[in-house]
């Protein structure tokens, strides 16, 4: 840029100078005058000659007259030139010269008639002419002298101007030379820089060539026609072609596998016609390539385009990744194997636990039955030992199962209202015997701030405490074990501390104790016994309940396990809503006398279950498989309840239930309870989907049986005669017979009817409103209070099922738990049933 500007400037200056100098030279080349000084002097000379001729004529007039005339004419001509010629204009500007010329002109004008006159006249006037000539000489002299001096001045000025022009020219020439020198320097610098750049470029080029040739990746350069232009050493190794073979060859033929060739050509054509890039410039692409041997192998490829002298070229880096791909495949296989192994292990554990729970169920159940008979004290003791051992075994099995479930993050936590101090005290009491056996004292302290009723998962809390207190007992001998329960800063969290004065845990082991299957001291553990899973399960439960567990221990001094759990305090009104889920089972219902069908293939289980039920005063019939069960329900019915085993040969429990439900009358609903060793909530959902009302998990005890019957609201139902049985058993859960009976006694039949009708009217509209709100997703406090009010009304008339449903709904709304989609529908159908039952009762 600078170079061009300087050059342009120089050229412009040269042009200007050229023009100027040429003009000046032109001016010098053309003269504006002849030898002026000579001409001036000549005027003087010619006047003298005229003067001399006049004198000569005076002496010899006739002969010289022609000569005189000629001389006059010559002078005349000269003088006229002085007067007229532009080259004397400068002289004529001088007043003295002008005046002198005026005199000369007058002389000429006056002399002409004399000269042109006749010879005689001229001869006569010679003396006069001589006088005039003399007279004019002074003037001619003046012109000559002045002229010479003026012209000398003019010449001087001209010379000066010329000298100036020349110095100007020399200055400009100097300038031009300077510019040329500068340009030369600039060019020189430019040239040197270019040479350096060229040198660098050639260095870079040779380095690049070295890089390409030593690259571990194959480097191919291809032109737009797909012809190979360059092929490095790595490419020779990878593809098996020598460089000479490859260069000029068709890329598609040489290295593109046959099954990709069409796609490759199409891609090239697309790129060349539309410029659309799919592989070019998109970074690493994984593809396949072909060796000279025809072997197809995986490659990693990156293509970019560059501009070369003869158009676009494609530069591709190709890496043979067959080794890597093989390694990857091996790795994936290894991982798959590992995952499969893990799955096999989990399946094994699940199956084993199931297989172990079934015989245990038989064992413990039978023990339960034996309980009812009178035994000698010795036998009672043995039985107790068997029961304890059986329970311990069951505990271990459950532990393993819990762990495997926890591994799959399947810990289900419940939210129930329970009495925290009572739970802790009961649990500690249960452990007191064991503790005392080892010489330990056991203390409980529940601070008042805890409150009685809290919301949480009592079962998990029980398991946590059981493990911690059990652990403390195990590792403490003749010491003290304390359980402290305090609420942290009156918030939602409760801290439970289990402190022992036992053997303690070394700091190095304190982290490990929460790991699976950790038993710190082999000898100790043998003495104490245990799977080493207790603390691992505790930790998982605590975490599942959003809590924390911290261990503080010193070897030989004891340990402190500090569990922090969210257990918010609930008021009495809030607690009410959770009541139904934690019904009071303290008094066992006896002698209600339901007609129950047991469908179970395992004889032992069948016997245990039927004996337990018969002990509670129910009449029990049995079927050996699903098919028989279905036949019984159809032909030998109606039953009040069916216990359905799940895994049976032929038709299993789920299928049998579906079959029963299929031909069941629309207004009839036979309660069916699944009996299974799978204590898995997901399974339970499946059973419910099949039409089962409840799930009973083995091992079965009389307590769990009673709880199940209570849940189904069957425990209080009375069975009068065979005809009414079906209806009663069905409606019993809908309408609490005893409750309404009592109300009838209290109020009298008339008042009860009025009350019931009012209830029906009021609840009809309330249920309608509730359902509408639920459909709209509108769950404000008005809805909650409406539900609360309706539940209260339902409780009054003994509409148990409706009350429970409404209370559960209220609780869910208050705790913002998600609502089932089916809920409004279920509520409506429940209301219809309640209404029917109530109206039927009133008819009687």
């Amino acid at each position, binding site marked *: 840029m600078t170079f061009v500007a300087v050059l342009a400037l120089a050229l412009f200056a040269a042009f200007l100078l050229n023009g100027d100098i040429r003009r000046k030279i*032109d001016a010098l*080349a*053309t*003269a*504006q*005058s*002849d*030898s002026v000084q000579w001409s001036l002097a*000549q005027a003087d000379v*010619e006047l003298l000659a005229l003067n001399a001729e006049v004198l000569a004529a005076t002496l010899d007039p006739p002969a010289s007259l022609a000569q005189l005339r*000629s001389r006059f*004419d*010559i002078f*005349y*001509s*000269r003088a*006229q*030139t002085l007067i*007229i*010629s*532009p*080259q004397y204009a400068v002289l004529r500007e001088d007043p003295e010269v002008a005046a002198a010329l005026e005199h000369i002109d007058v002389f000429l004008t006056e002399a002409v008639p004399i000269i042109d006159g006749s010879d005689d006249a001229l001869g006569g006037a010679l003396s006069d002419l001589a006088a005039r000539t003399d007279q004019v000489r002074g003037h001619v002299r003046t012109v000559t002298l002045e002229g010479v001096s003026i012209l000398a001045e003019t010449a001087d000025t001209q010379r000066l101007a010329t000298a100036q022009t020349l110095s100007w020219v020399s200055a400009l020439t100097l300038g031009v030379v300077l510019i040329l020198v500068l340009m030369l320097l600039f060019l020189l610098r430019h040239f040197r820089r270019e040479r350096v750049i060229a040198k660098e470029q050639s260095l870079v080029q040779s380095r690049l060539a070295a890089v390409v040739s030593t690259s571990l990746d194959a480097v191919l350069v291809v032109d737009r026609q797909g012809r190979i232009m360059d092929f490095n050493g790595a490419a020779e190794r990878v593809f098996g072609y020598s460089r000479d073979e490859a260069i000029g060859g068709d890329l598609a033929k040489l290295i593109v596998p046959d099954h990709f060739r069409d796609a490759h050509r199409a891609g090239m054509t697309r790129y060349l016609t539309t410029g659309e890039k799919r592989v070019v410039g998109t970074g690493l692409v994984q593809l396949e390539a072909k060796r000279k041997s025809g072997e197809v192998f995986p490659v990693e490829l990156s293509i970019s385009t560059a501009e070369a002298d003869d158009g676009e070229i494609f530069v591709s880096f190709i890496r043979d990744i067959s080794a890597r791909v093989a390694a990857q495949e091996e790795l994936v296989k290894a991982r798959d194997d590992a995952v499969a192994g893990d799955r096999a292990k989990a399946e094994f554990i699940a199956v084993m636990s199931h297989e172990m729970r079934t015989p245990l169920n038989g064992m413990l159940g039978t023990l339960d039955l034996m309980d009812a008979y009178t035994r000698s004290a010795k036998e009672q003791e043995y039985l107790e030992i068997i029961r304890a051992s059986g329970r311990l075994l069951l505990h271990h099995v459950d532990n393993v199962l819990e762990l495997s479930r926890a591994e799959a993050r399947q810990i289900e936590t419940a939210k129930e209202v329970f009495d925290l101090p009572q739970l802790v005290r009961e649990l500690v009491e249960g452990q007191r015997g064991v503790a005392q056996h080892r010489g330990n004292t056991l203390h409980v302290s529940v601070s008042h701030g805890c409150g009685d009723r809290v919301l949480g998962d009592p079962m998990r809390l029980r398991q946590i405490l059981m493990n911690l207190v059990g652990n403390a007992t195990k590792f403490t001998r003749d010491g003290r074990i304390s359980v402290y329960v305090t609420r942290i800063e009156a918030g939602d969290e409760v801290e439970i501390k289990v402190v022992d004065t036992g053997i303690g845990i070394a700091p190095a082991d304190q982290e490990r104790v929460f790991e699976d299957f950790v038993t710190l001291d082999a000898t100790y553990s043998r003495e104490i016994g245990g799977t080493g899973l207790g603390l691992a399960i505790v930790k998982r439960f605590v975490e599942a309940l959003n809590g924390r567990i911290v261990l503080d221990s010193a070897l030989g001094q004891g340990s402190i396990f500090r569990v922090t759990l969210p257990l918010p305090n609930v008021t009495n009104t809030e607690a009410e809503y959770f009541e139904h889920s934690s019904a009071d089972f303290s008094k066992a219902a006896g002698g209600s006398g339901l007609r129950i069908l047991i469908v179970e293939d395992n004889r032992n289980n069948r016997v245990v279950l039927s004996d337990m039920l018969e002990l509670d005063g129910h009449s029990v019939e049995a079927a050996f498989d699903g098919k028989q069960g279905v036949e019984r329900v159809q032909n030998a019915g109606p039953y009040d309840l069916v216990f359905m085993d799940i895994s049976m040969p032929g038709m299993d429990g789920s299928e049998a239930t579906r079959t029963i439900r299929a031909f069941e009358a629309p207004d009839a609903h036979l309660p069916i309870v699944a009996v299974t060793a799978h204590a898995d909530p997901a399974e339970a959902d499946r059973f419910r989907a099949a039409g089962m009302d409840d799930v009973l998990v083995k091992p079965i005890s009389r307590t769990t049986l009673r709880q199940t019957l209570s849940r189904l609201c069957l425990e209080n139902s009375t069975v009068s005669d065979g005809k009414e049985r079906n209806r009663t058993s069905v409606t019993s859960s809908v309408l609490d017979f005893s409750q309404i009976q009592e109300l009838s006694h209290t109020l009298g039949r008339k008042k009860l009817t009025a009350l019931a009708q009012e209830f029906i009217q009021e609840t009809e509209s309330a249920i309608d409103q509730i359902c509408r709100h639920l459909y709209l997703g509108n769950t404000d406090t008005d809805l909650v209070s409406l539900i609360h009010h309706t539940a209260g009304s339902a409780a009054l008339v003994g509409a148990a099922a409706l009350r429970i449903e409404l209370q559960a709904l209220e609780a869910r709304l208050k705790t913002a738990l998600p609502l089932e989609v089916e809920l409004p529908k279920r509520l409506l159908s429940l209301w219809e049933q309640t209404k029917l039952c109530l109206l039927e009762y009133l008819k009687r």
Partner: protein
Amino acid sequence: MVSLFSNLRNFLGFFAMSCAIATGPAAALDAVTGTPILTVTGDVQNTNADGVAEFDFDMLGTLDAVTFETSTIWTDGLQTFTGIELDDLLTLVGAEGETLKAFAVNDYAIEIPVSDAVDGGPIVAFLHNGEPMSLRNKGPLWIVYPYDSKSDYQSELIYSRSIWQLNRIEVQR
């Protein structure tokens, strides 16, 4: 008539001369009848007097003349000059020289190289603005260059060669 007669006489004279001088390539010139206003002396082949070629005003008028316009440094404004090209004149007189020496009535003399005598170059003018030139007006003859035609004719050297009141040319070897 007179001119016809004179031409005839010229022809006869020429005939007589060629008879008298049988050899010699030179063409004869008519002898002048009027006052000669130009004498060419020196190395000339064609002569009409004693070894010289003489021309009077009428003779010049019969020759092939050219006319051009130019300004001069001695006159005011554009001037018209009519005369014989120096080249033609030299051919006519059979001049065989390198240099011409021109003389004026006023004793001025100057040397003109023969190389100046070219076609389109200087003329020996005998008419100035269509008029014969008197001695007072730089006559009777004036060597005039076409100054305006090229800058080469605008030098002091050329000006010095522009001799007026010309009456004699000497052809020198």
